[in-house]
């Protein structure tokens, strides 16, 4: 990343007032000159003389709290109330790479990898600190006082001697005179001890807009003269359009156009980027939907014919026996460890596909003209939304404007290009703006599901009940290697991890906590079995394991350095908070598990009560998370609570099924999800304080360890070991 410091420019409004505009800075260093008169400054902050302060948020908010965190960070440096800022999304500020694709500028503009807060943390603080210093210097010049007589308070510069304060808005014009060279080297964000907002609970700055139904989501956008498209997409996992009756469709009320969308790529042997489809374009969504429902379309689904969830599961079982190993990892002498073991424990685990079920169905408005295009959408990545529009229109990225709105969840699926491409293709075809709205059925049938896998687990323990050997063999239909590549490998000397890949026509993709969301279950669930078989308490067994080393650098993405002293402290904290190990009534049980996801680590104790033999109620979850510096503890707790409930839902019900090459789970009747009636009424979250100066990941960290903590609790309560998900069908 090249050094990118903040630049300022000044905009004149029609009323003759000035606005100070600052671009984002990703480093505290300075340029020789910071004033840009070209008018090309992409705003990060905008101050107007009528007192408005606009925060342009660089990364979309899909529920992870990015907008609130951005406002909070900016407000801290400028001594403002976060609710006094106005929120906008930052325009794309990257550039075209050698192939003409949009690539990230001073910082990434997509949400993923639980990185959002980590990414904006430095740049937003530096940018806001620079703004603050411009105001301070402008006031110093106006009042002819030394800088050190001044400070900022409540959105104003305050003179400590005269006790006079001047709100920023009166200094907007004066910041032209502020001399950046005077500030050189002095612009530093506040020290931790001086902070009044960061590290404290900050409510969602969109809370009022949400509670009153303001149109802030992508699906709420409208532009003049737009048409509505509903698309019938190939219902087969892989296939193409054969025939349909165009005239019959055009005769239906409100229908204006019927347009074929070709599968991309057209080579059916490659994973679909865009499904084959037939778009019905009408004056209203309902007319388009009604016509689409009536369309009689013949598809060629032969390529995926005969594929089913059950057959794929059988292939996985077979692959575990005889299949090829695509990647492996080995250490020590596993055969010897197994031969010398006091006990060898074996088990087979399996999880099906999970659908994303993004709460806001995918949508995009595109207005494609001959030499430019503009889109309005809920997308996880501003950058990738532009690439999607460019791919569909063949326009250079410099001619594309993307307006990314608040996303009604993203969960990994809203990173994909398909819904943006569809809108662009259709708008280009009819020469008018088009809004594409997916139905729930579209969203599930065309999902990029969490991969499915089966695992053969084997462990050796010695006479003292210590783990001495570890063997994982995986047959997966995705690049989910973590279960076969991560600790306890390295904590035990003798290990082997094998990953086998099974191709099929289901489209797989990232789902909240990719890889970890299931690896954590397999590893922490099996460790629990091994502990119990070895006659150990599961907590003691984990503490022994994580006492064997202090650090371990992983070779799986994003290559974290695990700090096991933290693991031990997290486990002890959560055990204490949950009173883990206390006597429980008959039919009740506690389960414990810990996992690292991206750069964060989380542990849970789940308490359940069996309801008969095949159901259970989760009464309480106690959690401890290490997310580095918690910028917004209230938001961190929300992410942990959400991760818990998402994990409970996926574990109990998540099961995307297909038969004869066609998805058969396609709405909330056939794809069940947990509601409040099964959600734990008590959740206690402890945010670990290890004195970190920077935040780590949060959004995806709580979900992975929740599932093994749950299945371990079910075992404690009932003696039944869940090794096949979903639980609702396997208890």
């Amino acid at each position: 990343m090249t050094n990118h410091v903040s630049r300022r420019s000044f905009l004149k409004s029609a009323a003759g007032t000035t606005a100070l505009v600052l671009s984002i800075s990703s480093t505290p260093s300075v340029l020789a000159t910071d004033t840009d008169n070209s008018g090309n400054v992409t705003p990060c902050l905008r101050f107007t003389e009528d007192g408005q302060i606009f925060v342009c948020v660089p990364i979309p908010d899909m529920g992870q709290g990015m907008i609130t965190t951005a406002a909070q960070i900016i407000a801290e440096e400028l001594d403002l109330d976060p609710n006094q800022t106005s929120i906008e999304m930052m325009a794309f500020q990257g550039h075209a790479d050698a192939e003409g694709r949009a690539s990230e500028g001073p910082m990434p503009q997509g949400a993923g990898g639980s990185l959002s807060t980590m990414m904006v943390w430095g740049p937003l603080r530096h940018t806001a600190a620079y703004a603050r210093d411009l105001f301070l210097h402008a006031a110093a010049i106006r009042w002819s006082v030394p800088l050190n007589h001044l400070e900022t308070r409540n959105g104003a510069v305050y003179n400590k001697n005269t006790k006079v304060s001047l709100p920023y808005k009166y200094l907007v014009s004066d910041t032209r005179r502020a001399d950046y060279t005077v500030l050189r080297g002095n612009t530093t964000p506040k020290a931790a001890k001086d902070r009044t907002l960061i590290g404290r609970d900050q409510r969602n700055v969109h809370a009022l807009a949400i509670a009153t139904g303001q149109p802030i989501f992508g699906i709420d956008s409208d532009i003049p003269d737009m048409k509505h498209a509903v698309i019938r997409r190939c219902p087969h996992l892989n296939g193409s359009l054969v025939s349909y009756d165009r005239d019959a469709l055009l005769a239906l009320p409100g229908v204006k156009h019927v347009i074929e969308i070709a599968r991309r790529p057209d080579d059916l042997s490659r994973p679909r980027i865009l499904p084959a489809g037939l778009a019905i374009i009408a004056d209203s969504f309902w007319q388009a939907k009604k016509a689409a429902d009536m369309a009689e379309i013949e598809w060629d689904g032969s390529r995926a014919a005969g594929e089913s969830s059950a057959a794929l599961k059988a292939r996985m079982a077979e692959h575990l026996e005889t299949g090829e190993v695509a990647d492996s990892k080995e250490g020590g002498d596993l055969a010897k460890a197994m031969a010398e073991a006091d006990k060898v424990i074996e088990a087979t685990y399996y999880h099906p596909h999970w659908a994303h079920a993004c709460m806001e169905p995918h949508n995009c408005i595109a207005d494609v003209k001959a030499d430019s295009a503009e889109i309005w959408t809920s997308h996880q990545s501003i950058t990738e939304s532009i690439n999607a529009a460019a791919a569909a229109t063949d326009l250079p990225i410099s001619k594309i404007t993307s307006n990314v709105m608040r996303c009604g969840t993203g969960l990994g699926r809203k990173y994909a290009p398909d819904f943006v491409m569809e809108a662009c293709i259709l708008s280009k075809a009819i020469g008018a703006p088009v809004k594409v709205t997916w139905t729930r059925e579209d969203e599930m049938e065309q999902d990029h599901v969490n991969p499915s896998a089966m695992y053969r687990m084997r462990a050796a323990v010695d006479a003292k009940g210590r783990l001495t050997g570890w063997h994982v063999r995986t047959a997966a239909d995705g690049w989910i290697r973590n279960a076969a590549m991560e600790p306890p490998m390295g904590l035990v000397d003798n290990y082997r991890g094998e990953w086998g890949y099974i191709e099929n026509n289901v489209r797989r993709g990232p789902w909240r906590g990719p890889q970890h969301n299931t690896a954590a279950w397999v590893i922490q669930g099996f460790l629990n079995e091994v502990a119990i078989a070895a006659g150990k308490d599961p907590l003691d067994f984990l503490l022994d394991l994580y006492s064997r080393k202090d650090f371990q650098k992983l070779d799986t993405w994003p290559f974290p350095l695990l700090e096991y002293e933290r693991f031990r402290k997290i486990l002890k904290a959560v055990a204490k908070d949950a009173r883990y190990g206390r006597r429980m009534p008959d039919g009740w049980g506690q389960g414990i598990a810990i996992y690292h996801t991206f750069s964060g680590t989380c542990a849970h104790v789940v308490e359940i009560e069996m309801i008969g033999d095949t159901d259970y109620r989760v009464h309480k979850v106690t959690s401890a998370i290490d997310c580095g510096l918690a910028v917004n503890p209230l938001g961190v707790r929300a992410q942990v609570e959400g991760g818990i409930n998402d994990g409970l839902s996926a574990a109990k019900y998540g099961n995307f099924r297909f038969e004869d090459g066609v998805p058969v789970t396609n709405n909330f009747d056939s794809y069940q999800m947990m509601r409040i009636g099964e959600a734990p009424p008590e959740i206690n979250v402890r945010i670990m304080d290890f004195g970190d100066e920077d935040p780590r990941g949060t959004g995806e960290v709580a979900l992975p360890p929740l599932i093994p903590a749950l299945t371990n609790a079910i075992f404690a309560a009932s003696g039944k070991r869940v090794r096949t998900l979903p639980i609702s069908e396997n208890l």
Partner: protein
Amino acid sequence: MTTVTFKINGKAASFSGDGDMPLLWHLREDAGLKGTKFGCGIGQCGACTVHINGEAARSCSVPMAALDGTSITTIEGLADGERLHAVQEAWIKEDVAQCGYCQAGQIMAAAAFLKDNPNPTDDDIDSGIDNLCRCGSYYRIRKAIKLAAQNLAGA
């Protein structure tokens, strides 16, 4: 062609058109009230919850033809002018929303629920509210419902 007259958020309104069209799309596209959300279209998720004659209803599953003479309240009409409804206030106070997409429906469902259950137990909530929240904000929804109940009782 169906013609019906009704009230939306206290104002007289009428509709002439396809009587099969669900109320949801009339609200979002004709009336410009985008607060009511589309989530499933089959009455399963509750994102589209509004009040019809004071009772919670899933607007994706109510055809326009059934609305003659009714009075409809949407999330935009829940507050009394500038004064937020107790449920909206509780939602803000408890910081319930994550992505926020489901929350208009949750708030409308909770507001109707509290009329019949002014002092709800956990069991009442478990059986009386079944709106989906994909962000899993259930823990705070439960707290906010209880807070709203308290505030309504004290009002």
